[in-house]
Every structure is written in structure tokens, then in C-alpha cells.
């Protein structure tokens, strides 16, 4: 990689060991991908839940945080993805003191590094969305695909260590979706129906993710001429990223880089079709039981609008099985203030904040609570939780709420 004078100084340790370590890591990754140089980024978003970090990752963060004040802080606004717990509800979730202690240590270390503990995977709805052509280093696949596609920003998937490195150096290697040429569509997907609910948008994203199949694929999605809104795009993108590792899609006339098809697809593309039967088949493939142990709304965290809709559906009901709704620390106070939390909890549900279900020791929660058959309206969540020993089932918010009331998913 071509390095600037400042970057050479960082690597020489003139700014201390923390930025040197960060840039050394970035150069290794940049060299792998043949990056020519680094690009300045305006924000970083760090995934650092302790189920992923383990003791080893926590110690690594603590070593960085032990550097003296003035030589350890991030250089650009650096925010966090969800924590591995809602500290106020850890006992309810069956989480152990050891898990909570690891989380507390991570918070302590990240704060010393100057990181803002936003604990959200919907920062584009709650903190500050990235803007057209803005280079960022975001570290949640749902955040990246939304920011790249819906906002027109430029980010690769940045894992926790890399996103933190970007925060510490204010730059990232220029490869992948920072390059114009990599942002062109690679296949056209024609959809012959318009999803109606968030679970259908998620299922459609999942089907397209599977079809596209890998990180470097950029689907051009046609047949959906009107914007479905932020929450639908959130589920659509998060599922596409989850099922297919996709980081960017275009929708002509809707997403900002594709005002016209030719803007992102100057040449003919391989074409595939997706029908309603394809998303029904995906949903059906997860229907292994009709009994439900727990209902979870999470992944991504719920917006205020989703919580409002959920509260309306919970109003006056009484649940037979636990119902969890997970949101961000930015949304939770509004949900409290507007009475949504009280309505959901009066029905027997629980509103959690600052965590995400699958990032919060989901396997251990299953064992502690005896939860196996899980209903959700998140296609991303059903894709993930199979590996954690759950039987996850995908259904609409309305069906999930009814399942919480009866213990059966219709």
C-alpha cells in the first residue's frame, strides 16, 4: 500500500503504540485485497459484544485502554453496535455474573478509548445516517448494507477490530465498496410482487441474498418501483446481508446511486426472477413445529414506529409465553414516554434495550430459560439462530403476537 507521511509516522510509533497497532492491522488487510492506499472515514461503528470477544478479546481491548491518556483515543466519532446484555434485565435473561462482568469490562475499556456507547444496530435510524458518497467504517452487516444501498455511503463490512482500528487512525484501506468500480450491479433480480409486511421484506432479502451468494455480488432489484420505507429496507437489507453476505444492492428509481438502471448497470447483466412462492418456501422451510416457547422481535433492533405497531397489537392481550422486544437505547426512552413499553409489558412482554438477541449469549439463554421453539418476524434472526440450537420460525408480527397469547403459531 502507498502510505502518506502521516501514516509512515504512525507505523514508526511516533503517535504511540495504539494507532501503530491499528494501522499495522489495516495494512495487512489492505495488502490482502490489493488496496492502493487508505481513504479517510468520517465515522466508525464497532461490534464488540463479549460472546464474540471472549476473555481474549476483552483483554486485548483492556491492553489498548491501558495506554496513557492522550495516546489512546479514537480520532473520529466512533460508536458501538449492541451490547451482549441489557444490564437492567440480565437476571431475567438467565445471564450469569461472569457474562455481565465481561460486558462491564468492555464498556470500561471502550469508554477509555473515547468510543461512544450507542449500543445500536440501527444507528442510521437513531444516531446519524451516513450520506451519499461519505466514506465510513461500519461494523454490522445490516448497518453496512443499509448505509451503502439506501444512503449511498461507502463502507465495507468492518469487523470489530478493524472498525476500532479505523476509529483510531481515522482511515481505512481503500478496497471493495470504497471503489466506484466495485459498486456496479453484478446481477439483476426481477421481483414480480411487492412484500406487504416486514417478515416478507426480510424473506425477500434472504432469498435474494442466497441467490447472489457472496460479498462481491451487487444485486440490482427490479419490479419494486416505490420506496417501502426505512423499516422495510432495514429488514430487507439485514436479511440479504445475513443470508448472502451482501453489502450493497441497488433499486432503480429508489436508491440514490441508481436513479436509472444504466447508472449502475451500463452493460447487460445475468438475470434471475423471484416470485411470492420463493419467499413462502423460505418461510415454510423454518416451520418445524406449531408450539412456541418464546417470541422475539429483534435483529435489527426495533424502531419507534415498529414498537408503536407492536404496542397496538399487544394492547389488552395477555401472553402465555414470553415475548421480547429489543430496541436501542435511543428509542427506549421515547417508547417509555409514549406508553409503548407499558402496553407491551402489561400484556406480559418485556422491552429490552441496548442489546440484540443473537448477540447476547443466545445459546446460554436457551439453556437457562428452556427456550427452543422461537417465533420472530426477523428473517435475519431465523437464519442465525439455527446454529445456536433453536428451532426458529418466521411469521408476521401479528402472527407472532398471537403465538405469544396462545403458545401456538398459526
Amino acid at each position, binding site marked *: 500500500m502507498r502510505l502518506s507521511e502521516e501514516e509512515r509516522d504512525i507505523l514508526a510509533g511516533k503517535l504511540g503504540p495504539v494507532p501503530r497497532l491499528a494501522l499495522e*492491522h489495516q495494512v*495487512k*488487510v489492505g*495488502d*490482502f*485485497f*490489493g488496496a492502493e492506499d487508505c481513504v479517510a472515514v468520517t465515522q466508525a461503528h464497532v*461490534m*464488540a*459484544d463479549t*460472546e*464474540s*470477544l*471472549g*476473555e*481474549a*478479546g476483552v483483554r*486485548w481491548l483492556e491492553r489498548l485502554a491501558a495506554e496513557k491518556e492522550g495516546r489512546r483515543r479514537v480520532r473520529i466519532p466512533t460508536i458501538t*453496535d449492541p451490547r451482549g446484555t441489557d444490564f437492567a434485565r440480565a437476571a431475567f435473561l438467565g445471564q450469569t455474573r461472569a457474562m455481565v462482568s465481561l460486558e462491564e469490562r468492555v464498556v470500561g475499556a471502550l469508554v477509555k478509548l473515547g468510543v461512544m456507547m450507542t449500543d445500536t444496530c440501527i444507528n442510521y435510524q437513531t444516531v446519524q445516517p451516513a450520506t451519499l458518497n461519505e466514506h465510513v467504517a461500519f*461494523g*454490522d*452487516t445490516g448497518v453496512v448494507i443499509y448505509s451503502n444501498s439506501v444512503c449511498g455511503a461507502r463502507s*465495507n*463490512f*468492518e*469487523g*470489530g*477490530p*478493524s472498525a476500532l482500528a479505523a476509529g483510531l487512525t481515522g482511515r481505512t484501506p481503500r*478496497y*471493495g465498496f470504497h471503489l466506484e468500480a466495485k459498486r456496479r450491479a453484478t446481477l439483476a433480480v426481477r421481483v414480480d410482487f411487492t412484500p406487504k409486511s416486514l417478515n416478507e421484506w426480510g424473506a425477500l432479502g434472504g432469498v435474494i441474498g442466497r441467490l447472489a*451468494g*457472496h*460479498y*462481491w455480488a451487487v444485486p440490482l432489484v427490479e419490479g419494486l418501483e416505490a420506496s417501502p420505507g426505512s423499516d422495510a429496507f432495514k429488514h430487507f437489507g439485514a436479511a440479504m*446481508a*445475513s*443470508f*448472502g*453476505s451482501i*453489502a450493497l444492492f441497488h433499486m432503480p428509481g429508489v436508491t440514490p446511486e441508481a436513479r436509472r438502471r444504466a447508472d449502475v448497470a451500463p452493460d447487460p447483466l445475468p438475470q434471475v426472477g423471484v416470485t411470492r412462492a420463493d419467499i413462502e418456501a423460505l418461510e415454510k422451510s423454518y416451520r418445524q413445529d406449531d408450539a412456541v416457547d418464546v417470541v422475539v422481535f429483534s435483529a435489527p433492533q426495533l424502531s419507534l414506529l415498529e414498537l408503536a405497531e407492536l404496542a397496538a397489537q399487544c394492547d389488552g392481550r395477555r401472553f402465555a409465553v414470553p415475548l421480547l422486544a429489543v430496541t436501542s437505547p435511543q428509542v427506549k426512552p421515547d417508547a417509555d414516554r409514549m406508553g409503548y413499553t407499558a402496553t407491551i409489558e402489561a400484556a406480559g412482554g418485556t422491552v429490552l434495550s441496548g442489546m440484540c438477541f*443473537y*448477540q447476547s449469549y443466545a*445459546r446460554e439463554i436457551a439453556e437457562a430459560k428452556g427456550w427452543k421453539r422461537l417465533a420472530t418476524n426477523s428473517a435475519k434472526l431465523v*437464519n*442465525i439462530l*439455527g*446454529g*445456536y*440450537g433453536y428451532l426458529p420460525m418466521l411469521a408476521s408480527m401479528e402472527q407472532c403476537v398471537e403465538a405469544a397469547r396462545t403458545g401456538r403459531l398459526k
Partner: protein
Amino acid sequence: MIELHARHAIGSPVTGHALVARDGFSARYDLDRVQGIFSRPAHKLAGESYVGKVLVLDTAKGGVASSWMLHEMASRGVAPLALVFNSVNPILVQGAAFGDIPMLAGFDGDITALVPNGAQVTIEPQKRVLRILQV
């Protein structure tokens, strides 16, 4: 001896037995990292131990967690010996760099068809080479 050349590489040389499948890889979605086995029921290697193996798979899947998780698995000695993929996403590369796990990616042909399951292989990232020593 068959020699296969990769377009991208990172890490130090290793020799070990290959565990091969035409399937994807995500540390969070696919693994029981405590037991060191593939745990997602639909994965072609479900139930198989990956510890100390040269994992030969098609492509990287899933989320950003793998970059922390490879480091964490390596710290407990329950990591793959090396990762060999047809294509990778940045997360796995960042994880290989952070966890100090050798990786090769990008071959002429499908690497999951070129390397027999169980074969003894050597990886030399500096030369971007995988050698099949014994089938």
C-alpha cells in the same frame, strides 16, 4: 504432488489435514465454538470438528462477529489451522489478520473440488501456494 495457486494470502506456513465441503462459513452462524464443531444443522459439515484442520470451503457468509471469534477461538486452541476459500469477505480476512490464522483465497477452479477431504496439505501464504502432499 499437486500445487494450487491463490490470488490472495495472509499469514505463516502450516501443514495439516484438510476438511472440505462446498458450503459457506460463518463463525457465529455455523459453529459451536465451545465444542469446536460445526453446529448449524443445514451445514454440510454439521457435527464435524474443525479444530486443527485446514478448512477448505466455498465462501464467507454471515456477520461481522467472525473477526473477533477467530481470535477468541485461537486463544483457547479450538481454531482451524488455516482457512482456504474460493472467495472471502473482508470479515474473515480481518479475522485471519487479527487471529493470526493463515488464509488463502481465489483459485483457478473450485478449490473445494480440487482438494480431497482428509488430504494432507501444506500452505505457504508468502508464495500464495497450497500443496496437496498426501490424499
